[in-house]
């Protein structure tokens, strides 16, 4: 440790790119903010709320887009290779903060940067080439219109550098799809809320990074290595992170959630899917009848992750989706649970090869598979209800369970063609356009992930109050309600759920802000995480301080959303979940009893009955 220097496992440098002016400038990281918001999600959001008008047009030059690492990113702390993209969302109008693994986060950190802030809008398509301190905006007319996979290949060929890491947008973002992702390392994505759409609106096609400076600057390296080793052992010894996730990936959940009666099916009309087993994690291991190979080739890890839940899959070469398309006869990112659910059970499709194909296209063209699948499910219900017809769809019959139609819609949306342009609106705008807004399964215009809250009541509250619209990664009470982590609660009762949701939300905000993957928390508690942060970062990063930091971040995000025009009235769920009871399974006869949880939640948060943080709460948290 150097004398008189604050050791924060930070590079303490921000790269500010003004796309309008074409300038790239270094500036020091605000270390006072780092002490209050830790890093990644929290710290980048602090920058955004200070620099961006909450009422701005998300796709205008006045919005900013921040790529951010955490203090533990680039260290051997397990799962700490994460990075996030923070901006204002064009899908929700709220804050967007999308987290991705892969390798680009470490590469940015190794190049010497904690954060890259993009502002303005480039007059022509450009990409950022970043090699340590050398940052350069390069014209990208030749890349515009290319897919993620083509862009990745072209940039690697141009620089003749196999170790170059690329994050970029595909065609969908350029065509204005409102749920476009930023894909890095071919098949990892900052997936939700349309962060890729914002990137494309700035005429920024890609970020290509090579970092060789290293990450160090730890407060107490010896203690850090010791606590990191102990924490890795906790992951290895835990049945979920040591066995379940490496073997089945997040797809370990498909059968479990179906049995719990919480697998949203056919646009959330039902809560159990008869074909769940055929698209489950177990099914991915079964040899295919046609070629004798299983869907799953191997599991894979993001940077520094000792869990390795990622899926590497192939599609059967004889499957209708890839006949005469050898570009898809490769190994690439296979379906994870949320994608498998949205493309599968929610559209009523039980064809694993078709889902894998759609997943490949989502990676290739940069689309959020959750919103995509849910929007297709809504379109299928609109079609069944007669609200849209073959004339609207260009002749396609949108029937639930039709794998060929599913694949066609995914293709069209990826390229921004035909009815795919309507799908690219997301389900809320789609259902409004065709006069049936109640058929959109969204909160704050963002689609639900794969847990029906009628069968997991806490998730109902978590969805309703999430700061980025419906989302499983802001307060994953599924862990407690279904898996018994850290302790089992009854998924069908509402008592105690307000406190549970708040605790998960605050803890998750702190975990994200350290640069750690939230999946680590299947095994780690804050007692495992805080010592790793504390050994790396100056200051006393106790469990209490981590949780207080999480609560501060949550309230800061809330404040931004309220200033953007959202209100407590937006903390609700679609009528279907509040009025139409689950038809089968353990939750049969139940709706989400949100009104039993929400007032208590507001009170626990120190918010008014309208969901506004009180002056007292804000001042307690230093906001």
């Amino acid at each position, binding site marked *: 440790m150097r004398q008189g220097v604050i050791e924060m496992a930070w590079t303490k440098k921000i790269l500010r790119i003004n796309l309008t002016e074409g300038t790239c400038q270094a500036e020091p990281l605000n270390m006072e903010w780092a002490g209050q918001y830790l890093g990644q999600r929290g710290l980048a959001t602090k920058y955004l709320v200070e620099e961006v008008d909450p009422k701005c047009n998300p796709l205008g030059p006045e919005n900013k887009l921040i790529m951010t690492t955490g203090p533990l990113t680039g260290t051997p702390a397990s799962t700490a290779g994460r990075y996030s993209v923070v901006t204002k969302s064009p899908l929700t109008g709220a804050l967007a903060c999308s987290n991705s693994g892969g390798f680009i986060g470490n590469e940015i950190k190794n190049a010497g940067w904690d954060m890259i802030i993009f502002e303005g809008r480039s007059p022509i398509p450009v990409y950022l080439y970043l090699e340590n301190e050398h940052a350069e905006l390069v014209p990208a007319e030749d890349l515009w219109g290319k897919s993620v996979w083509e862009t990745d290949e072209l940039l690697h060929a141009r620089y003749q550098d196999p170790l170059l890491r690329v994050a970029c947008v595909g065609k969908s973002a350029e065509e204005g799809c409102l749920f476009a992702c930023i894909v890095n390392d071919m098949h990892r994505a900052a997936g939700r809320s349309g962060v890729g759409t914002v990137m494309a609106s700035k005429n920024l096609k890609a970020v290509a990074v090579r*970092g*060789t400076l*290293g990450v*160090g600057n730890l407060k107490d390296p010896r203690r850090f290595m010791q606590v990191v080793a102990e924490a890795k052992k906790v992951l290895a010894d835990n049945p979920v992170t040591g066995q379940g996730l490496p073997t089945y990936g997040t797809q370990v959940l498909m059968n479990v959630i179906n049995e719990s009666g919480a697998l949203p099916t056919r646009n959330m009309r039902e809560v159990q899917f008869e074909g769940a087993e055929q698209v489950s994690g177990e099914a991915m291991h079964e040899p295919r009848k046609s070629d004798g190979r299983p869907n799953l*080739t191997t599991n894979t890890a993001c*940077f520094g992750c*000792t869990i*390795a839940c990622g899926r590497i899959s192939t599609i059967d070469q004889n499957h209708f989706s890839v006949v005469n398309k050898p570009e898809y006869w*490769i190994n690439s990112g296979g379906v994870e649970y949320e994608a498998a659910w949205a493309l599968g059970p929610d559209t009523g499709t039980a064809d694993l090869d078709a889902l894998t194909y759609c997943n490949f296209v989502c990676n290739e063209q940069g689309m959020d598979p959750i919103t995509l699948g849910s929007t297709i499910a809504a379109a299928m219900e609109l079609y069944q209800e007669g609200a849209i017809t073959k004339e609207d769809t260009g002749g396609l019959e949108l029937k639930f369970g039709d794998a060929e139609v599913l694949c066609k819609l995914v293709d069209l949306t990826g390229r921004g063609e035909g009815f795919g342009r309507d799908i690219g609106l997301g389900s809320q705008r789609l259902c409004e356009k065709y006069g049936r807004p109640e058929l959109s399964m969204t909160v704050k215009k963002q689609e639900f992930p794969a847990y029906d809250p009628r069968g997991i009541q806490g998730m109902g509250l978590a969805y309703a109050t999430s700061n980025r619209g419906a989302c499983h990664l802001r307060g994953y009470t599924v862990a407690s309600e279904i898996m018994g982590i850290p302790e089992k609660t009854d998924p069908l009762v509402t008592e105690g759920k307000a406190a549970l949701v708040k605790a998960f939300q605050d803890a998750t905000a702190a975990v994200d802000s350290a640069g750690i993957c939230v999946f680590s928390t299947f095994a780690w508690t804050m007692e495992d995480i805080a010592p790793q942060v504390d050994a790396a970062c100056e200051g006393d990063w106790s469990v209490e301080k981590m949780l207080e930091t999480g609560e501060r971040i949550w309230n800061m995000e809330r404040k931004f959303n309220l200033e953007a025009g959202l209100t407590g009235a937006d903390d609700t769920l679609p009528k279907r979940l509040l009025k139409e009871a689950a038809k089968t399974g353990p939750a049969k006869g139940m709706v989400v009893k949100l009104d039993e949880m929400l007032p208590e939640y507001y009170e626990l948060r120190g918010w008014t009955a309208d969901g506004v943080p009180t002056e007292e709460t804000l001042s307690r948290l230093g906001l």
Partner: protein
Amino acid sequence: MLKALQIEPAKCTGCLQCELACSWENEQVFNPSKSRIKVFTFHDEGRFVPYTCTQCTEAWCMQTCPVDAIVINETTGAKEVIEEVCVGCKVCTIACPFGTINYNSSSGKVIKCDLCGGEPECAKACPTDAITYVDADHTGLARMRAHAAGGD
């Protein structure tokens, strides 16, 4: 007993913990670009392959060094670079058929795996036992056992 690194690519997940451990041990910084062991990803095939120096008996790098900067560690059998002697001529990097000795522009010397003096950090850091440190005369033992178990 002389020991050697044994690498089993089928077990590798591509997490790079080995590269982090190697660069920390040798450079006191987490920096994959300064690692003596590298993991190669073959994306389209879905394969990850760690690769490093195999400590050749008649090591090309050692034979070719004009200043005798590469010597045998009698305990571990590793071919080690003596930094004070190395002049950074890079002839060894040309001689090595496997590419496992490389120039380090930060120090102006070459770097290669030295088995960490008999306790290789990469093997300790590997979460899946894709890299192990085993009896040098029996690196095939696990595979022999697997085949033996499958045979009649």
